């Protein structure tokens, strides 16, 4: 299985690295968006695809990363700011994960959504308290530099999800998804495993958040905590097939393409299509495109 997918992946990565040599600023920007969404969706799958705890608030990690990033960037430089953003998101996940992950099923979905909105308004109020509405990051890295870094993060997120899914932890997480009581009863330390997945799925989105602030040079809380980001992640994952590291490529590619065609002239149409895609996939193809293509069951020779 690894063999079958390694070569296409390496080819794709090589092609992605080559994009800037043939494309102009605009296309590099599009490729950057694509890489960003892949990184975010892969991270989401590590949590939600594997454990079944569907997060509809993953933007909270992105937003926190962005906030920490903009606060640190001018003080300590880009590298440390991005690292700090990832760290902060991870720590935040550890802090809220324990109580949050005790809530199950649809309540967890709503909880994550509420948590992200809550954090958004907290940050808005904190910023307003500091007399800020938005912040600027002038003189950040070029789009090209950002592209390579985010591409690296997308690759890292994919690899992380791929290997965790096949690791000891991955078995535990999927057992939790299927039946949490049974998993606990056969010795899986469920609270610990869920928390680990939660934290692991938070770090890369945090780093991506900081980088995307550098990309737009602009930070505004309601922008970086936009719930549409969470919504898009879930839709991308479900379109692609949500419990596999291969899923997001198709979902992200499709939606980024759609978005590029529509966002400037018909943003509402884009959102409507997004909603319709989600409805259609939940109703008709819960396994996503990948699920359809690779009709299961998956062979599991370790």
């Amino acid at each position, binding site marked *: 299985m690894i063999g079958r997918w390694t070569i296409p992946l390496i080819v794709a990565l090589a092609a992605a690295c080559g994009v800037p040599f043939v494309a102009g600023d605009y296309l590099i920007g599009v490729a950057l968006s694509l890489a960003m969404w892949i990184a975010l969706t892969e991270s989401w799958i590590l949590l939600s695809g594997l454990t079944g705890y*569907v997060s*509809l608030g993953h933007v909270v990690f992105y937003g926190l990363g962005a906030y920490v990033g903009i606060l640190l960037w001018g003080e300590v430089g880009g590298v440390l700011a991005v690292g700090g953003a990832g760290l902060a998101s991870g720590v935040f996940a550890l802090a809220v994960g324990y*109580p*949050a992950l*005790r*809530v199950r*099923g*649809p*309540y967890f*979905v*709503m*909880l994550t959504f*509420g*948590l992200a*909105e*809550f954090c958004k*308004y*907290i940050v*808005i*109020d904190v910023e*307003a308290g500091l007399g800020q509405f938005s912040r600027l990051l002038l003189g950040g890295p070029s789009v090209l530099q950002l592209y390579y870094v985010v591409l690296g993060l997308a690759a890292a997120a994919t690899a992380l999800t791929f290997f965790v899914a096949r690791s000891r932890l991955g078995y535990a997480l999927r057992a939790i998804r299927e039946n949490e009581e049974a998993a606990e009863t056969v010795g899986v330390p469920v609270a610990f495993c869920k928390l680990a997945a939660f934290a692991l799925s938070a770090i890369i989105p945090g780093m991506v958040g900081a980088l995307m602030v550098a990309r737009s040079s602009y930070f505004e809380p309601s922008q970086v905590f936009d719930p549409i980001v969470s*919504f898009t992640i*879930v839709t991308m994952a*479900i379109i692609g097939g949500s419990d596999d590291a291969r899923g997001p490529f198709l979902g992200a590619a499709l939606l980024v393409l759609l978005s590029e065609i529509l966002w400037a002239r018909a943003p*509402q*149409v884009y*959102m*409507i299509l*997004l*909603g*319709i*895609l*989600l*409805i259609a996939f*939940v*109703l008709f193809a*819960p396994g996503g495109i990948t699920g359809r293509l690779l009709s299961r069951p998956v062979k599991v020779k370790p």
Partner: protein
Amino acid sequence: MQAILSWQLLFAALVTGSIYVLVALGLNLVYGTMRLLNVAHGDMVMIGAYVSYWLFTLSGLSPLLSMLIAAALTAALGALAYVGLFRRLLANRQLVQRLEGNSLLLFFGISIVIQNLASLAFDSTPRAYQYLDRVVAIGNLGITENRLAALIVTGILSLVIVLFLRFHIYGLAIKALMQHREAATVVGIDVERVQILSFCIGFGVAGLAGALLSMMEQITPFMGFPFTIAAFVVVILGGLGNLLGGMAAGLLLGILETYGVALTSPSLRSVLIYGVFILVLLVRPQGLLGGKRVVR
């Protein structure tokens, strides 16, 4: 500080609370009878508000009349959603296993579609009209007529619904379905019809609440979501499926929000609502006031 003691504030709290009561009631019906988590519920409020806005702006029709049209329209949408989407969901065994989760994602999709259709049709600029906006003075309490009207309508409607559920045959069937689904089918209740009815009442009441709201607040295509959140808080506080508990909780949230904002700052309003929302989910998703089931 004096503001806290003013009747004005209490009145504002009651108006907000009564709107929450109506919105949450519909959510509770749909969840209670079918275990569907309708996060598009607040969008019915938005649709109802636009119906009344346009009818008033174009033909001068009083929102107190057009609220019936708004309710009928959203009720029809409810029936449509049920027949078009949820019958399929409820009929598919594989999907029913994860019914609550799937319904949540479906309704999120629907919500996004509705909001953006509205934004496409009406654009996202806030709109308002003026109707019954004279101030009547009762003692030193100044009340806008439209708020008074809204409070009266919500009060009457809540009463009607309570009586309907207690005495009408369909009301009883809905209650039976909420308490025990299988038993309800055994005693010969036409589950399908009751479910459609729940959808219609639930959506219709939300639409009506929106029509009332349009007299008092600016409306936008994205105004619905906070009501969804508030409705969830109310339903969870009052106990899923517990209608009377929900009514009490609706008023409680109205008071909590209005006084919370008055004591702190309007900028904390969202933090307050989402804070309560998170807390309620973390502490006790099965409900604080009511037990696990029970409609009295």
